[in-house]
């Protein structure tokens, strides 16, 4: 019987191993018409584009919207006959936002011969994977990896992104506090995470360089902790007039709620991770008056309206985080392939840098380092339960 069990486990392993060797089946986008999927497309007949990011685990909510965005774009392209006369196919890989898994995922995409990659979602995972893509000469476009290092270091010429880097956000926040809110003392709080702490570091640097703001508190909190009242007391004690928070909305909502409950009158300024409707839903009345930076308002952009509508029609709810950025990235990639008339790396990157493309976040192209020209941030404030652009 023990033999049987052992055998079963081993057999199961081989079955799984077998499955994975037929990646075409797993990789086909859910929306693709059945006829297409059935057609045994030789590599020459399709253009494969990779989509990588966290699709499971606790960060899945940041990664899954990009898959949906990519699927919508690809569907509309294929409906119109494809790119360069070929169908576009997505290869979706999950990196759970872990560097080591990201490397495996990148390897998988490389061995699938993708021509470009939409992803990854987290900066850390992106950095880990970039080496693999660079060696394989594959352009990568992230909708969400905001670490400035990715573009500014110049180490990753194949990297592009449709979101502005953290430092520009930090700059904007500091300027807003100094010039518009005209406050003097701030507390900088972050979530010890890659994104939040990175942003906080920049904000701290800018504030110290400007010498106009006094940083009375600079500290990290632990995401997922049971209670944040101690740090809130400390903010109160520090006499800060504003809290600049680097991190995501769950913790921000907790802090904002506590600040309000403790009847503290401090401004709360945060980042793109907080400029999320979930934040307002979670924090409810306490969200009122919170400032957050985020990509320029695109609610009037017809492409953005269309993209959002597609999602609502298909899934019955608003799209999640970075959906529009991913949509943009997918449009930019496919547009570049079209314009370059080829999937060749040099031609493709050149097209990305030279050809303007209309996207949900406006008309963009990419600078030498890979940052999107035209993707900028503005400041929003929660008024009557919605984020309103104030600058």
């Amino acid at each position: 019987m023990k033999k049987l069990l052992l055998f079963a486990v081993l057999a199961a392993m081989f079955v799984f191993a077998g499955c994975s060797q037929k990646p075409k089946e797993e990789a086909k986008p859910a929306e693709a018409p059945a006829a297409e999927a059935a057609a045994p497309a030789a590599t020459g007949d399709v253009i494969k584009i990779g989509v990588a990011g966290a699709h499971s685990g606790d960060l899945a909510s940041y990664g899954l919207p990009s898959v949906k965005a990519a699927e919508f774009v690809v569907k509309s392209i294929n409906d119109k006959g494809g790119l360069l006369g070929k169908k576009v196919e997505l290869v979706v890989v999950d990196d759970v936002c872990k560097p080591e898994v990201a490397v495996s995922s990148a390897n998988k995409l490389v061995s699938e011969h993708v021509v470009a990659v939409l992803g990854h979602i987290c900066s850390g995972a992106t950095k880990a994977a970039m080496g693999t893509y660079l060696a394989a000469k594959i352009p990568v476009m992230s909708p969400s990896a905001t670490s400035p290092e990715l573009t500014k270091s110049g180490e990753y010429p194949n990297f592009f992104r449709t979101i502005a880097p953290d430092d520009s956000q930090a700059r904007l926040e500091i300027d807003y506090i100094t010039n518009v809110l005209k406050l003097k003392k701030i507390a900088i709080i972050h979530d010890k995470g890659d994104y939040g702490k990175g942003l906080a570091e920049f904000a701290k640097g800018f504030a110290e360089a400007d010498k106009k703001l006094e940083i009375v508190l600079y500290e990290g909190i632990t995401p997922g902790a049971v209670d944040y009242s101690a740090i809130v007391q400390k903010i109160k004690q520090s006499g800060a007039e504003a809290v600049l928070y680097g991190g995501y909305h769950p913790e921000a909502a907790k802090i904002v709620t506590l600040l309000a409950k403790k009847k503290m009158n401090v401004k709360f300024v945060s980042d793109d991770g907080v400029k999320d409707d979930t934040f307002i839903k979670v924090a409810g009345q306490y969200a009122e008056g919170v400032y957050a930076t985020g990509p320029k308002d695109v609610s009037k952009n017809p492409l953005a309206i269309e993209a959002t509508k597609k999602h609502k029609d298909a899934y019955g709810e608003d799209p999640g985080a970075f959906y529009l950025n991913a949509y943009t990235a997918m449009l930019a990639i496919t547009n570049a392939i079209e314009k370059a008339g080829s999937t060749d790396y040099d031609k493709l990157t050149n097209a990305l840098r030279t050809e303007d493309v209309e996207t949900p976040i406006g008309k963009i192209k990419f600078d030498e380092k890979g940052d999107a020209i035209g993707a900028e941030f503005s400041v929003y404030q929660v008024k009557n339960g919605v984020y309103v652009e104030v600058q």
Partner: protein
Amino acid sequence: MDYFLELFLGGLTRGSIYALIALGYTMVYGIVQLINFAHGEIYMIGAFTALIIASVLTILGLNSIAILVIATAAAIVYSSAYGYTVEKIAYKPLRNAPRLSPLISAIGMSIFLQNYVLLAQTSDFLPFPRLIPEFAFMEPVSHIFSSAELVIVSTTMIVMVLLTLFIKFTNIGKAMRATAQDKTMALLIGIDVDRVISVTFIIGSSLAALGGVLIANHIGQINFYIGFIAGIKAFTAAVLGGIGSIPGAVLGALILGWTESFATGYVSSDYEDVFAFALLVLILIFRPAGLLGKAETKKV
């Protein structure tokens, strides 16, 4: 002084929540010598059940006190049911297995339950409805101690007293103590040990559920992952106090809560967890059985 008091009260709240979860760890450990890693998940499931039931009832338009009561009751019932089932599936068949096996099984269960909730519900944070009303009499002090915090602390205290009385005076409480001290003998005097173990899991899970509802209400949001950190912290508290000891768990939890609160307040929240774990390591080095744990006498 005010600052100190605020930190003290904050630590008390935090410690109370830890205590509710730590009790489950300590009771289970006392009886089956097992670190029930899935206990944090039971807490999370309690919070989720309360959220789901409360939302449904809100949509149906019940008043908030009724919702609070029903949701809490549902959370307790379901958490207990999960605790009971987890024991039956993942631990009971392993009663006589090598020591590490149930631990691995528990870790597996924890991963399983997290992903179960993730798949069945969502990975997003969900806003938890505010069910505990603001008491008017708390108004003057609400800036340092809110109504929700009062409810948390007082509930914990009441539960603690009830639990102590239960363990001390009821028949099943005595059976629990007997089983913890000598399982064979408990069997020999006719105690249905399996049943006692089930009851232990049920009580521990109920307390965790209560903790889950209270904290979710206080913090205002939950997701499938909240059990992990709370679980680790509560477990640390249980060990700190001396695992297996009920007053130890409460003491350990409060000390942990205060350590974290004061460490954040007077040093830096950057290292809040480092302080917590360092405290644990220190205490165990000087008192290897924890603060109120019974040192085991070596028998040769």
